[in-house]
């Protein structure tokens, strides 16, 4: 957007606030009635959006595609054989397995075809298997990073280098708000997990940060204990009534000051204080699940009763999209299985399997799946070769950037299909003829392409959603490489 347009938008916003200053403020506070919502989203959709909202289930630490989705039946015969050099093909490896043997490790878990579509899923995912026909597996994801921090930063912000806005921030910036009482972008960090307890990779607030976009677009991380939003609750001894009284006084004085000094920004302050006051009511209502029927809680599984569980967060994510939150990102940690992978995977899948399936079913029952896109992904994949001690039932896997599996559901994406292929080792992405490739045309999907596709479903041409920074029209998909919309999987 050029500065003039930016200015005009600012202008109209200011005018709005200005004209409505008499109406805003005390009246709204008194009646607890919301003023009309001021959309700051200025992006004019290129097409009718298929999806209005996104729930991104982020498996931090990188789950093994080989043990969940990417079925390689022939690997059993190759147990403990070295990975052929032409497969590895000069691939850089992490410091952890550099210079070691690279011996093949098949998955110990059984795979079977599911639903009418016959998508293969591992026995670790019995619940997700029941909704396989709603899921689109992308088996040919690849990334540029082989370490967690840059890997996660890349998938969440489109760049390995810290400082870029996250996907949710871009959506908030581009599309504005769908609701007037809640943030556009909410982050739910699962407070615990069943897998690896010791080796748990860090998250960074930059993963839901705004980078160079205005900070009002940043993800609001909900807390699993205490007030869900930082500083939401009044201090002890401040009732809603006294907060109301206090804000009446503040608004009165602010309005007088605005009349004297002329700066329209004061009206923004007034509006935001009102929003804060409304959030003090709307957020507790959002996180209070006591009115959910028992059958609904059962659908999400026993963990849903624990605050901060992944299951609870999935249920909250549904309640959020229901209330018009644009983008919800649910983080689940503990997927970095360098050793003792099978046991840890069982625990992790216990955490996430039933809630993921429940989320799909729940949204579907409410008619929300059609325009809510669910994305499930880690930051990269894991190696076919073993790390740490190796036996048929005990093994670990190192980081792997050349291929991994993500899945999508709803939001105008076809269910019961898979996209992309990997070689017999789940090591390289291959084309129709089995030749190694990283080309989009051959089916390989970079994170840029995934992001372009997500934006597309929301009615956004990724090339047009830009923000001027450091002299460049910055984009979620970067300014360097081309990105593609994966139209094949769209209904």
């Amino acid at each position, binding site marked *: 957007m050029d500065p003039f347009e930016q200015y005009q938008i600012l202008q109209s916003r200011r005018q709005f606030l*200005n004209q409505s200053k008499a109406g805003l403020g005390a009246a709204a506070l008194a009646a607890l009635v919301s003023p009309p919502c001021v959309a700051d989203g200025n992006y004019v959709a290129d097409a009718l959006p298929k999806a209005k909202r996104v729930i991104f289930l982020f498996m931090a630490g990188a789950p093994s595609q080989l043990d969940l989705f990417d079925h390689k039946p022939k690997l059993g015969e190759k147990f403990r054989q070295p990975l052929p050099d032409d497969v590895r093909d000069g691939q850089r490896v992490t410091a952890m397995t550099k210079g070691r043997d690279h011996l093949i490790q098949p998955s110990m878990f059984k795979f079977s075809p599911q639903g009418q579509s016959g998508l293969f899923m591992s026995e670790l995912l019995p619940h997700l298997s029941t909704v396989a026909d709603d899921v689109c597996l992308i088996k040919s994801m690849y990334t540029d990073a082989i370490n967690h921090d840059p890997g996660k930063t890349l998938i969440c912000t489109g760049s390995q280098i810290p400082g870029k806005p996250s996907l949710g921030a871009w959506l908030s910036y581009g599309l504005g708000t769908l609701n007037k009482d809640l943030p556009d972008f909410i982050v739910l960090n699962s407070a615990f997990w069943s897998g690896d307890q010791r080796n748990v990779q860090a998250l960074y607030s930059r993963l839901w940060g705004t980078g160079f976009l205005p*900070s009002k677009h940043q993800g609001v991380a909900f807390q699993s204990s205490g007030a869900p939003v930082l500083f939401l609750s009044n201090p002890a001894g401040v009732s809603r009534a006294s907060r109301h009284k206090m804000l009446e006084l503040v608004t009165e004085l602010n309005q007088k000051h605005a009349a004297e000094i002329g700066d329209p920004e004061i009206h923004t302050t007034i509006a935001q204080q009102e929003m804060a006051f409304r959030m003090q009511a709307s957020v507790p209502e959002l996180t209070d699940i006591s009115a959910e029927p028992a059958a609904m809680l059962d659908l999400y599984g026993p963990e849903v009763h624990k605050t901060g569980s992944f299951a609870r967060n999935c249920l909250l994510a549904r309640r959020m999209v229901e209330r018009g939150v644009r983008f919800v990102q649910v983080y689940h940690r503990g997927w970095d299985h360098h050793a003792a992978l099978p046991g840890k995977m069982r625990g992790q899948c216990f955490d996430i399997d039933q809630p993921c399936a429940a989320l799909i079913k729940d949204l579907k029952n409410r008619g929300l799946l059609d325009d809510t896109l669910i994305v499930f992904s880690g930051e990269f994949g894991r190696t076919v070769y073993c790390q740490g001690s190796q036996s048929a039932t005990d093994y670990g896997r190192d980081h792997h950037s050349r291929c991994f599996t993500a899945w999508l559901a709803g939001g105008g994406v076809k269910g019961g299909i898979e996209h992309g292929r990997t070689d017999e080792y789940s090591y390289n992405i291959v084309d129709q003829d089995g030749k190694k490739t990283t080309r989009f045309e051959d089916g390989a999907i970079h994170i840029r392409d995934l992001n372009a596709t997500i934006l597309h479903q929301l009615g956004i041409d990724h090339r047009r959603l830009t923000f001027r920074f450091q002299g460049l029209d910055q984009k979620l998909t970067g300014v360097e490489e081309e990105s593609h919309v994966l139209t094949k999987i769209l209904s």
Partner: protein
Amino acid sequence: MRSAIVQKHKFLISARFAKGQRRRIMQDRNKWNVDRNRLWLCRSRFTRMPLLLSIWTLISLPAASDTVSFNRDVRAILSDRCFQCHGPNEETRQAELRLDVADDREGPFHDRDGHRVITPKDLQASAIWQRLTTNDDAERMPPAESNVKPLTSGEKQVIRQWILNGAQYEDFWAFVSPQRPTAPDAADPQWNSPIDRFVLARLTVEKMTPQPAADKRTLIRRVTLDLTGVPPTPTEIQRFLNDQSPEAYQDLVDRLLATPRYGEHMAKYWLDLVRFADTNGIHHDHYREMTPYRDWVIRAFNANLRFDDFVTYQIAGDLYEQPTIDQQIASGFNRLHLVIDRGTAIPEESFNRNVVDRVSAFGTAFLGLTLGCAVCHDHKYDPVTQKDFYQLSAFFNNFDTTPETPGRDTHPPFIQLPTPAQSEQLKLLASRVATVTVEINTLRKAATPDEKAAAVATLKQKEEELKAVTRQNADLNTLVQVSLVSKERTEIRPAYILTRGAYDQPGEQVERNTPSFLPPLDSAESLKTRMDLARWVTDGQHPLTARVAVNRFWQQFFGVGLVKTSGDFGAQGEFPSHPDLLDDLASSFVQSQWDVKTLIRAIVLSATYQQSSSAPVEAYQADPENRLLGRGSRFRLDSEMIRDQMLLVSGLLNETMYGKSVRPPQPPNLWKSVSMKSSSTYSFEADTGESIYRRSIYSFWKRAMPPPQMTIFDAPTRESCVARRERTNTPLQALVLMNERQYFHAAGNAARTLLAANDLSEAARLSRAYESVTSHLPDTEELASLQNGLSGLRLTYQQDVESVKAVTSEIKEASHQERIEIAAWTMLVNSLFNLDATKTRE
């Protein structure tokens, strides 16, 4: 898509012309002083330009006029719409055409078999004009599929006029040394300083009149906040009001510049710029010890260290013949980048990442350039080649340090900074170690069996002592303050251009050098050093350093710089709103021996700065950011100032300076929610006691999760260099000001102090409260609002016994009636803390 563009260009241009041999014309490297005249020409035109246009269009989007300047009007359009394919980057250049320079065989004036892309003064013979204006979609530039926005009609008019006027190119203004311009004549005796004369001249052209000077209360609040980061106390206000002398304001400024708070406040901006933090920022995000660097920055500003020395110490403080402690600490600048701990990443990749981070920081902090773009390819907009980047990187690739940190341990090289007492103790221990060692050796040399037998017991005792003393020594060493510093390796590590920036794809080897589009670095030695680089940057004739620095200082006082893009002075940056003023400030800054306080003094003593920020709504709408300086600037305070102000006015502020970072309380589990369990910053334990009331500059900064009270108000995470903070206005900010526990505690503290003054009437007490928070006295209407608000709050609490107890739980002895008063007054102060005027500098 790219190939489609290539095809089209080939068809329309290149195919018609013989394929010329590509060659890069390096810009003349001896441009310290040349082309000044051309630049002047453009400047003097600038001020004469007839201006019937809206203010905004003037600043960034000049419409048609017969006085079009290449630098001001044309370059931005070409850069934005054309350079991507017709700019400095040779690889992406299409159709063998570059529009960024005039004199090149691929330039626009070059004869292409009788055709020219631009023929001065002749639109018909200028292919560019045809291509910009044609109705043929397939021919029109920029091509639709490039996703570059088409030119607006106003922009086309600019190009049209420029061609008609002769299509004169100018060297990019920021890469030519500033020369001190002559200030316009003083049109108003009150507006007599050089700053004011430049500003007023522009306002006059715009047919605008400045606002009158702000009232004394506004003024003392503004200048105290701007220079010290906290507001004035009522006593200070009274003293200023009572001082009727003409020098009252000047004296106030001098007083403020001399307070130690000044350095703390100035340091905040610098620490954003160099991304100072307490953790490493990647992977484990372990603690790192750099706080002596922060202390040095504070001391340097307070001592008014010459800015050129300030810069040199940081780039190359370790390379002085006998560096002082301060110079070594300052050289820690090169250690402020993010760094991973060893174990997972590939060390070669980490090494490269560190080098790139250092060079980018050098570019942003000192040159105001976005050099990072040239890591992978030639810059698409600025003349920064990939080679330029790696030549520069060769100054920053030779540190004597490992690319990854040894886990939690301090990452060498570092210096130890024992206190005098510790020094003494360490000396004693060292001498004791030496003595005992000698004694042991002597005992071991015992020759005869008898002697040996006699020595056994003593030897054992001495060995025990040695162990104990060594342990004491080690223990004491862990208590000694350290700071990471720079240290050069003796052997020189070669540097290469990395193909597409990949650490494992070295290409051509390069030597240390500065970017080719800037003046050359002259060095007597064949091997240029970081010290040479520092001297080059701080040369008084350097086109960027002083401009970039004064612009950032200016930005502190007006909310936005004369160049708005204070971190980007390149082609994609913004042209200055007042180019002459910028050059005047830069030149006088250098002439003053880089004297920061003198510069700041000149700024805050100007009539421009002292204007009232009260203006008609229309003025705010016409120029929301006050780029034309027709009023006093009004903008929200930074997060640190908001917090420090609250601590000061409530009497809680602890003004202890320096030292390790402190941890004021924050909501629970924030660190845990993001950290690895084995991180040294996994679990946040709030400090107790007075240290939680230290100024915010001393708050612990974990990069993965900085204090939310700060980031919610737009403080950066300190993961990358930030020259200018955003200023947003969000509901989360409102929640912080309403509910943050320390802020609420501060309100309670202020309320009790107010109530303790029992000789006051309620109205007088309300006035005092209002004044201590806003620096103003309430007028009748405001006082009525306050009284009304207080009564309402009192009534609420009279009906709510539990709430009264909760608010006053810290108070031991008080009647219920007194408690109701305290609760109501606490909420009254909380209201004052939430006023827009309180969080705003106006």
